């Protein structure tokens, strides 16, 4: 069952994204993707055409997973952070990290950084490298397993 997000709900989502990350627009059709995930579709097929296709084949997924809903927070998916439409809008709760911190972060370690409680976007140079959540004492790591670097930490 494909569940399209209504425009009234999209507005609410966008309001939270604006508050947490500074996003003001999302040009995508949003779809409920299961496991509290929201997917974004930028394709040209209408809702009716998508549903029609769903009657002919097993639609596994539509578009891309961009947001997960956790409690009161919305987390932007690791892969979506580097899509220009999203990347260029992120302006809030950005924490810049060093090369050394990046090496730890991309291997799944939490970072001992003090900052305000809540979701944060980690930035290394001009790249966003994932969302974390701060408890004011440290930032918990949400880099998905398959995006973590598998090589051992470089010797400093």
């Amino acid at each position, binding site marked *: 069952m494909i569940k399209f997000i209504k425009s009234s709900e999209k507005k609410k989502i966008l309001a939270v994204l604006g508050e947490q990350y500074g996003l003001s627009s999302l040009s995508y059709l949003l779809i409920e993707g299961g496991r509290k995930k929201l997917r974004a579709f930028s*394709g040209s097929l209408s809702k009716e055409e998508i549903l029609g296709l769903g009657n002919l084949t097993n639609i596994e997924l539509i578009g891309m997973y961009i947001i997960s809903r956790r409690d009161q927070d919305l987390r932007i998916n690791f892969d979506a952070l580097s899509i220009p439409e999203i990347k260029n809008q992120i302006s809030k709760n950005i924490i810049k990290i060093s090369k050394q911190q990046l090496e730890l972060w991309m291997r799944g370690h939490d970072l001992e950084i003090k900052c305000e409680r809540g979701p944060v976007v980690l930035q290394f140079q001009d790249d966003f490298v994932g969302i974390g959540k701060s408890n004011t004492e440290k930032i918990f790591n949400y880099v998905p397993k398959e995006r973590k670097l598998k090589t051992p930490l470089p010797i400093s």
Partner: protein
Amino acid sequence: MKKTFKYQMKPAFEERMKSLIPDKDDFAQFEKIIHQEPLSFIRCNTIKISPCELLKKLNRKSWQVKQPYPNFPEVMLIESDLLPGELGNALEHQLGYYYIQEVSSMLPPIALNPQPEELILDLMASPGSKTTQIAAKMQNKGTVVANDLKIQRIKILVSNLERCGVTNTIISRKDAIALCSKLANLNYTKFDKILVDAPCSGEGTLRSSPKTFIIWNHKITKSLSRQQKKFIAFALKCLKKSGVLVYSTCTHAPEENEEVIDFALRNFPVKIETLALPLKCRPGITKWKDKTFHQDVKKTCRIYPQDNDSEGFFVAKLRLLEETK
């Protein structure tokens, strides 16, 4: 430094390849190169980053990167000797800035020439190298229906599409023939373009998959050929008038290449179009064993590893002259 492998061609395979490459020096070059590891190519994912920006990032890592094809700046050759797995474990890869893809495998989407706003069917889409390339060319507009059959293959496809930030794709899981049959019978919107990157015997992938030397078996080409003809026949039913179907394989076997295109030319209202690809192509053959193919199969494109220091490939571009049922 190029590594070499110890595997040898099976006698029957060697004999077939000698028929396809009759010139002795040419064959010697083929034999030499198929025992060497392939070059390290990547494709810049222009959905997320421009080739120029990626180049700067890779140069900062002290990687030596060349862009060998001026009209295709997204195609990059990594000339540095990297550690095993380094290419797939780099931050830029995890961020979806590039896709590790052998250059000959980039040819089918180049031949397809996807445009934004088109409706495109990628019939056997996993692992997603060509789907991501198509979506990038479409600037994430239009729609790609990316189909595959097995859930394990779909998972790999999803992971690659998400890493590359592809948002214009619908992933379908169905047998390719059943899907085309349903789409055609129930009069679903016809596609502007279809890619049939068919399952094949993989003779062109000896450099990256040396196990092909061992598992190669000439009997399989006949059954694959029958299946590939079905794929093309059913796919054509889902194509718009004047729509384009690109058929490709990673094998040299004429049964799976020219014979399939010959079948399409003789049974469907299609014409074959000449390809302009960035690699050296040899024309399709018109005679193989006791079979003579349509003269137009010369317009298909055979990629031999010794011509381009690449893998082997086959690409053909068909245009549908009138809709079929």
